[in-house]
């Protein structure tokens, strides 16, 4: 153990490890480097909280519990460094320490007593005896990473005693005493006998082709309930069985077809947080930089989607770990286009998205070979093609923000190299066409929503067009990102486009039923009659007194299906300006003629 203050050094990160993370891979040894840094980060935050607590008010029960927990953790570190390292590496502790620091900085009281519970959990693992007061929540004492002990009473606090073999909550005699033996005090893998008074944290140990993964399914820790959706508290035994089966099935997909991802995930993901979606069809997953090693997700529809989600979120986990060690982006006010989001994103958010989608591209690259059903093969090819192209454009956008540090520029260059290495991978024509169309629809819809134009320059262009003058190249209007500058109506067309490869069977069914609220032009587009769709969208725009942003995007999509032309290029490159100029001109003007003038 290091006993010298002067010997304190920064974490070591070899260039090879930096390069491996940037390449979207990172073997277990690299993941352990990131984990080590998180352990130090959590220790650092714990120390900051300890300094703020100081000797404090002896009557403050939370502060007293914190000090007792800190003292116990010090003893555990001496007796069993592995147990203290386990605790300091837990995402639960990371979330608590992170929130504690924020509360201190905001002048509100941190949940100090949580540390006593956390230290008790590590002491039980290490077999280190203790006696300390801990808070009771919903009748239980929470031992993060292990489980919950029934407190045996209504009191808000209870004395917890541990003699190295048995854990007791209560005064040790008479009513309200709960005792559980050490061997039983662990996570619940769904196969053991119930232990009186003890509810182990649900967990699953999965195995495929000799590769094992041990992961907790946490739904009761307040510091892992930090995502955009609430955690699925109170899962029934049946629901837990389903989660365990799903994780096993997803693990088989990962190990058999994505070994490059499976091994690091087994090392780096220790917690899955099941989330409650707002609707049954909604699939949301998330990670937080405060909780390294935890991945949150709502129930995915199938094991392949769960596997993809794990790959995606683990990319975020890795990048969050690296960002704690090496700043890659500085905060900046500018927000830009991200091909996977409906809102403008800051540089840091775009970097996260690019990195996550590199993992997704790799996943679908391999998954294309694993699928046997024609619909699933199509989905895999489209996913691969769509996100592969998106990465390169997004890296260019990111570099243009000027928000990257020198290490960030280097990291982004390495990311782009990875994408370019996939450029030669062949994709069938149908999948390539769908991918291009979905990407175009997303980009143009985003531009209509969030790209503002210089009103005076737009007016000048409209005047020049009315007078029949040539397009004044020097007067091209300036554009900038501005959230929700225009409103779009229905998103049915976009959802149907996505459905054409995400759920092809449902797509065919809906198209056959003909019940969707689509315009006549949209129906022609989906009916593969691009020429008729172009004319129909044009008539809709020309004949309407009100701007028709949905029709403009539809017209761009229909043109995209026809041979290259000047209007096609103008729609793809200057849609917000075209739209605004046409709005100034008013009804009766042909959008295709206007686009040709731009071209």
């Amino acid at each position, binding site marked *: *153990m290091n*006993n010298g203050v002067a010997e*304190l050094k*920064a*974490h*070591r*990160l*070899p*260039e*090879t490890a*930096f*390069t491996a993370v940037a390449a979207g891979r990172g073997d277990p040894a690299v993941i352990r480097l990131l984990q080590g840094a998180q*352990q*130090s*980060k959590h*220790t*650092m*935050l*714990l*120390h900051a909280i*300890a*300094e703020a607590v100081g000797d404090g008010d002896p009557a403050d029960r939370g502060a007293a519990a914190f000090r007792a927990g800190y003292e116990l953790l*010090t003893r555990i*570190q*001496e007796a069993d*460094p592995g147990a203290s*390292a386990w605790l300091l590496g837990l995402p639960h502790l990371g979330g608590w320490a*992170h929130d504690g*620091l*924020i509360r201190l*900085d905001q002048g509100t009281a941190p949940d100090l007593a949580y540390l006593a519970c956390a230290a008790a959990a590590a002491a039980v693992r290490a077999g280190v005896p203790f006696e300390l007061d801990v808070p009771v929540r919903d009748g239980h004492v929470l031992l993060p990473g292990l489980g919950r002990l029934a407190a045996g009473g209504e009191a808000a606090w209870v004395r917890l005693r541990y003699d190295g073999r048995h854990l007791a909550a209560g005064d040790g005699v008479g009513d309200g005493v709960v005792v559980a033996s050490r061997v039983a005090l662990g996570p619940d893998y769904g196969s053991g006998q119930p232990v009186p008074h003890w509810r182990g944290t649900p967990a699953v140990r999965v195995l495929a082709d000799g590769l094992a993964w041990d992961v907790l399914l946490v739904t009761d820790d307040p510091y892992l309930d*930090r*995502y*955009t959706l609430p955690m699925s508290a109170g899962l029934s035994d049946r629901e837990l069985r389903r989660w365990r089966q799903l994780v096993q099935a997803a693990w088989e997909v990962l190990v058999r077809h994505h070994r490059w991802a499976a091994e690091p995930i087994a090392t780096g993901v220790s917690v899955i947080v099941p989330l409650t979606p707002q609707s049954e*069809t909604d*699939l*949301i*997953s*998330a*990670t*937080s*930089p*405060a909780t390294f090693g935890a991945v949150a997700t709502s129930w*995915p529809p199938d094991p392949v*989607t769960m596997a*993809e*989600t794990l790959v*995606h*979120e683990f990319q975020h986990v890795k990048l969050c770990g690296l960002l704690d*060690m*090496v*700043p890659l982006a500085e*905060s900046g006010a500018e927000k830009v286009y991200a091909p*996977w989001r409906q809102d403008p994103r800051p540089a*840091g958010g775009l970097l*996260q998205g690019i990195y*996550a989608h590199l993992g997704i591209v790799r996943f679908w690259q391999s998954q294309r070979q694993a699928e046997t059903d024609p619909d699933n093969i199509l989905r895999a090819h489209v996913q691969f093609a769509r996100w592969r192209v998106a990465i390169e454009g997004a890296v260019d956008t990111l570099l243009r923000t000027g928000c990257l540090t020198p290490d960030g520029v*280097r990291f982004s260059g390495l990311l782009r190299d990875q994408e370019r290495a996939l450029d030669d991978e062949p994709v069938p024509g149908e999948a390539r066409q769908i991918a291009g169309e979905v990407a175009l629809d997303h980009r143009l819809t985003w531009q209509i929503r969030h790209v503002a134009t210089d009103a005076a320059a737009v007016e000048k262009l409209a005047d020049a067009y009315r007078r029949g003058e040539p397009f004044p190249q020097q007067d091209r209007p300036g554009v900038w990102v501005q959230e929700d500058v225009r409103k779009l109506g229905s998103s049915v067309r976009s959802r149907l486009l*996505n459905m054409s490869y*995400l759920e092809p069977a449902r797509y065919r069914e809906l198209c056959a039923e003909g019940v969707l609220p689509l315009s006549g032009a949209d129906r022609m587009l989906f009916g593969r009659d691009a020429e008729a769709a172009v004319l129909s969208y044009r008539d809709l725009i020309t004949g309407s007194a009100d701007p028709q942003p949905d029709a403009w995007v539809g017209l761009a999509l229909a043109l995209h299906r026809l041979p290259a032309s000047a209007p096609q290029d103008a729609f793809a490159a200057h849609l917000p300006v075209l739209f605004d100029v046409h709005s100034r001109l008013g009804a009766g003007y042909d959008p295709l003629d206007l686009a040709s003038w731009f071209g």
Partner: protein
Amino acid sequence: MITQQQNVKTAIPDLRDFPLDRLAEMGGTPLAHSIALYRERLKENGVPLSSFNARI
């Protein structure tokens, strides 16, 4: 030119083997500096959260 043998400069002190009961002795050392930097990052960036909707 960066070679693969080099280390990348990192912002976190290695505390893995450091005795918890001696952290208080660190005072105005690189540890305090690292904590200040971390606090600054939190203030600048807020609490970022990845949130992915697979249906988009």
